[in-house]
């Protein structure tokens, strides 16, 4: 059984069909890519699956549960983690607080613990802090734990975001253009990080990317989305040579 199955998912914004009859199946541990030109609806697909938008039609089944229309925080706590194209870090919080807070759904000390500082709370806070440190170490940013995240350089911010997403203990991780705005050196580091977390946690990954090179290197299967519709799906090699994909990316002339 696939870990995540999306069936005929569509979304209308008023009269505009932003996503049309989108299908997806991801097996545990699989790395898949989603490519397409600007405005094709890639991020919208992410927002639909993670519950930010509610699909007009279609079904989303994750880990045997139907999650269509659930609140985003519930979907996330089932094990569907994500990062954002534009980071969305919390302005006044330190790196450590970011990674601690992402473990919110695992906290069980409740309001009594929060108000009165019980020993149960101290124990749990210490445990999530340890976990946070181990994730920061994995990302190579544990020395920055007490810095306010937004004061860090861009590459480090990306790592914070990745650590934060991993702290939710996802079974599948949605990465929305994790290398946007990176220079070649940072890009290589980010690819190494993605490989490492894939190997370490056995995560399934769905990757949105602009850079074909990265998708071709990392992904087993790639979908191409144009105007909210999947026009091609296959292995990186197949996609690279698909005339429809080439047309969408480079225009019709490139074929002649």
């Amino acid at each position, binding site marked *: 059984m696939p870990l995540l199955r999306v069936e005929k998912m569509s979304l209308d914004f008023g009269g505009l069909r932003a996503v049309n009859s989108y299908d997806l199946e991801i097996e545990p541990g699989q790395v898949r890519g989603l490519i397409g030109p600007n405005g094709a609806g890639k991020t919208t697909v992410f927002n639909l699956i993670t519950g930010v938008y509610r699909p007009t039609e279609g079904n989303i089944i994750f880990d045997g549960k139907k999650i269509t229309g659930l609140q985003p925080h519930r979907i996330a706590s089932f094990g569907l983690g994500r990062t954002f194209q534009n980071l969305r870090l*919390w302005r006044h*919080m330190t790196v450590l607080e970011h990674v*601690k*807070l992402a473990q919110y759904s695992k906290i069980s000390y409740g*309001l009594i613990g929060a108000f009165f500082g019980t020993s149960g709370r101290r124990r749990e806070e210490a445990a999530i802090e340890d976990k946070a440190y181990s994730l920061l170490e994995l990302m190579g940013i544990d020395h920055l734990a007490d810095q306010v995240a937004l004061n860090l350089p861009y590459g480090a911010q990306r790592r914070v975001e990745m650590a*934060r997403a991993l702290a939710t203990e996802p079974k599948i991780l949605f990465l929305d253009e994790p290398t946007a705005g990176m220079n070649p050196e940072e890009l290589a580091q980010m690819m190494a990080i993605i490989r490492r977390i894939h190997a370490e946690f056995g995560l399934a990954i769905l990757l949105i990317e602009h850079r074909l090179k990265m998708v071709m290197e990392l992904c087993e299967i790639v979908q191409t989305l144009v105007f909210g519709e999947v026009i091609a799906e296959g292995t990186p090699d197949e996609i690279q040579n698909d005339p429809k994909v080439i047309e969408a990316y480079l225009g019709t002339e490139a074929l002649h």
Partner: protein
Amino acid sequence: MKQLKENIRSSFSRVPLLGWLFGALIAVWLEHLAGDPLAAALGLPKIPVLFGCVIMLKKPVLIPAAVIYVLLIYALPVAAVARLSASFANRLAARMLNLPIFFSVAIHLGLLYAVLHMWSEMSAYRVITLKLTLIAVMLTLSLNIINGYMGEFSCSHPGFMALGAYAASAFTVALFVEDKLFGQALLPSALGPFMFPLALIAGGMVAALGALAIAIPSFRTRGDYLAIISLAFMFIVKSMIENLEVVGGPRGLSSQPDWANLPTVFGWTVACVWIINNFVRSTLGKALNAVRDEETAANAMTVDTRRTKIIAFLFAAFWAGVAGGLFAHVLRYVNPATFGIQKLAEVLAMVYFGGLNSVYGSIVGAVSLSLLGEALRPLEILKWLIIPLLLILVMIFRPTGLVAFKEFNVKNLVKPRQRRKE
């Protein structure tokens, strides 16, 4: 000159909080012993109640006398004792830190209470000013949860305060006082002081219930809804009480029993600061900051944002209700006109003046604006020019307030001070 200033600074930077408390204790003790004769000798009508501010503004001729009084009674003794006791206080503070933190905190609070108690004993005016200041701290801190930590804009705090004040008053007056509104006392008044905490908690609960009426419709989305709905709520509560004859309508409700003495108000204020500080420093409390800074991300990181917002809002309303209950029992009279737009402006000013997202800030804001309001009283109408002007200056130079975004860490506060390393 510069060298001298630097020397003074570095020698005082070694004084721990404990040292300053020793100094303050000696100063208030000195005032007990020598306050009256010194004031008479300096030609002052009586001892200056608020560090001489009021006297100076009323009769400028007395400025030198008031300054000398403040120097001799407060400034010099505090400085001298703090400096001289520094190494002893440091050793003591270090030794106490080896014991559980509770012990050290209790000692500090006990000293602080002794200072406040002895200081306020000199005049009834000081007692009431001090109690109202402590209540202002509770109000400001609870509003800071919503406007600072959560980053929404709520205007309903006077309404919550009114609900708490009336609910707690109704509780105590109906049960323990023979009153023309509620009739015979139902319980012997000896039980009273033990039931008073219950009355305050009931007041807080009623306020939290009122808050639920705002929270459910306004936390579906973000934006200006909360400001509008909460403002409306404040006016609704006010006119509801004005039309409720059973609690006296616009004439107000009086004859509350005299249970809100200084230790009670002090104890509740400490509890309020402690619990709120615990909450905002826990990961559950940090969720408020995440909701404020980037709600979509908070949601995607498993934070139940709506529940978080509602709980924080109810929690803040609870403390506003408790503060309202204390307020009613300090003045032993409430009327609905108290809980209007002016009260709102006062609390908002304290929050934004002191600093958003900060327990220190709320304490600083509430204490400084309360005392300033009292000290500038002789200026009458001009007072309402000076305080807003100050606020504007703070908004220009420190837009988030004086001590914003600073964690209130008790351990750092009570620890011994090391000599600064050059």
